[in-house]
């Protein structure tokens, strides 16, 4: 009980600090925070698949792009405002996620990873080549900011910050509630042992497609925020290397936890910014630090913090793409 109260207290304190930041920081730092906020939504959505359902998706940057482009096209060519376009963007990305999910979710582990990577790239290349609709490599520019509400002027980084903050908090909260639910438990069971999950009565297919669709819709939502925050989007922002970065964010933070991806996102967006002062060696150091982080923080940043706090005995192996033992085990049971 006490523990819980402390947790809630911490969360409220963090939220209070977060909400006064625009009064304390300059626009550059607010911009970085805004980027983090948008990416937190994206990584929370990816975490649903990777961390909780155990499916290594590389399609999320593609779905993010779909959200961004839907929103951008609606607001620039069809006269929609952000407020009407973002739900549509989320729905379009969700529907596309569902359609992609139908064939893709039959695959597991590497095959799932590579097929989703394929779909992500197909989305990007379609955007790249469908010039009439998307502007092709030229991208879409002059995407309007959300129209002002509640006295907030979204052309200002500091004001947009609140929109992003609220969205991110809501999405993270939503993910947390979902994970606590029966469906969330089913997702975790699938991650742990998919074939066995069937035998405790989980319709694994349905749960997976639900998770994928939902997570696609969240990615689409993040995309629509991204488009109207930046005013300009181009297919160059949605490449495989971006997929890799968000995956790193989820995992380095500590996947399958709520806070992990937030920490990871913050770390991996701040790190290169901090390194700007050593500009010459920046990317070398970044790459080296990544390797070291993975080698010495198996459970991600969150794991490291936890082992400092010594609250729980840590789990040494995370599950995704496990060394293949479980699969061998279940395959064995099929044979024996």
């Amino acid at each position: 009980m006490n523990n819980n109260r402390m947790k809630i207290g911490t969360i409220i304190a963090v939220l209070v600090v977060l909400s006064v930041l625009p009064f304390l920081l300059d626009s550059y730092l607010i911009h970085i925070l805004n980027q983090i906020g948008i990416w937190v939504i994206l990584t929370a959505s990816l975490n649903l698949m990777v961390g909780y359902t155990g499916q290594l998706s590389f399609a999320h940057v593609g779905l993010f792009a779909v959200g961004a482009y839907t929103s951008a096209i609606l607001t620039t060519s069809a006269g929609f405002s952000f407020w009407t376009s973002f739900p549509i963007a989320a729905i379009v990305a969700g529907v596309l996620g569902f359609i992609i999910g139908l064939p893709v979710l039959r695959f597991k582990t590497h095959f799932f990873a590579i097929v989703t990577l394929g779909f992500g790239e197909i989305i990007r290349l379609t955007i790249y080549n469908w010039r009439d609709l998307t502007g092709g490599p030229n991208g879409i520019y002059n995407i309007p900011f959300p129209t002002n509400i509640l006295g907030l002027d979204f052309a200002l980084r500091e004001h947009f910050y609140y929109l992003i903050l609220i969205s991110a908090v809501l999405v993270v909260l939503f993910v947390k509630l979902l994970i606590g639910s029966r469906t969330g438990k089913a997702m975790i069971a699938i991650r742990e042992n998919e074939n066995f999950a069937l035998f405790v009565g989980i319709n694994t297919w349905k749960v997976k497609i639900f998770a994928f669709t939902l997570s696609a819709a969240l990615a689409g939502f993040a995309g629509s925020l991204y488009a109207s925050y930046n005013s300009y989007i181009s297919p160059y922002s949605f490449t495989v290397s971006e997929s890799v970065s968000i995956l790193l964010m989820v995992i380095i933070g500590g996947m399958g936890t709520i806070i992990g991806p937030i920490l990871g996102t913050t770390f991996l967006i701040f790190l290169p910014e901090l390194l700007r002062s050593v500009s010459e060696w920046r990317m070398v150091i970044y790459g080296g630090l990544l390797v070291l982080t993975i080698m010495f923080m198996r459970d991600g940043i969150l794991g490291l913090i936890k082992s400092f706090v010594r609250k729980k005995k840590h789990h040494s192996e995370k599950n995704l793409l496990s060394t293949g033992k479980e699969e061998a085990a279940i395959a064995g049971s099929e044979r024996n």
Partner: protein
Amino acid sequence: MGDQIIQSILDGLVSGSIYGLMAIGFTLVFGIMHVINLAHGELYMLGAFTTFIMVGVYQINFFVAILAAMLIVGGLGFLIERYIFRPLRNTAMLNTLLASIGLSIFISNLVLKIAGTGMRSIPTPFSDKSFTIIGATISTHRLMVLLLTALLVAVLFWVIKFTKFGRSLRATSQDQDASALMGVNINLTYGLVFAISAGMAAMAGGLIGSLYVVDPTMGLGPGLKAFIIVILGGMGSVVGAIVGAFVMGYAETFTSLFWAASYQDLVGYILLILVLLLKPNGLFGGAKR
């Protein structure tokens, strides 16, 4: 058109073997160590640079240089396995995948930092002479690539299938603990596998790098492509990797011939997905895993 199709068949063969050279090394590490080494492309780049330095700067014989590059990069691969992948062994596969991503960023930027952005090209001893086979032409250099790939595949296939070392590789890939109980030196085996894979990437770098240009970012595309091909072919299978490479090579060649070269990647990905939908374990993937 007929001539062009024959020519394209030959072109596809060359493209396929170029991809094959990359993919075999990748699939070895993947199949035996269960490590998805996304830094494979960077090893290829290092191979090209090493060859370049030896041939371009020190005027060493091209073939000797490639051989030396294989040894040097192979040795580096051994060290990488020892100090990065071994500590991560037996943890989730994702860890090694991520470490390899970090490694790839590290290596390519380090080379960029040291060597600068400039492009280089490796002088080759091959003459401009080309051969004409039933109306299609192929240069000496490309013919060389083709033959070397064929040779390498044959040797590798034989080693894995029929030698004791090959058997221990397969055993280790299937059950590490049990192989240790049979007396297989796991650390050495993994180190060698990684070294062989790195050496092959280096050979590809020297041979192919001299066809194109050598620069610090040249590994990015081929590394990813190797991964895709390996999955397409069926992971861990050497034959699969080769067949996958040729399927990819021909898909691109014919896209280029009948449509436009710029749609190659799109077609490649669609093909990958279609193949996996029909054969979920890849073209040569076993029924399991």
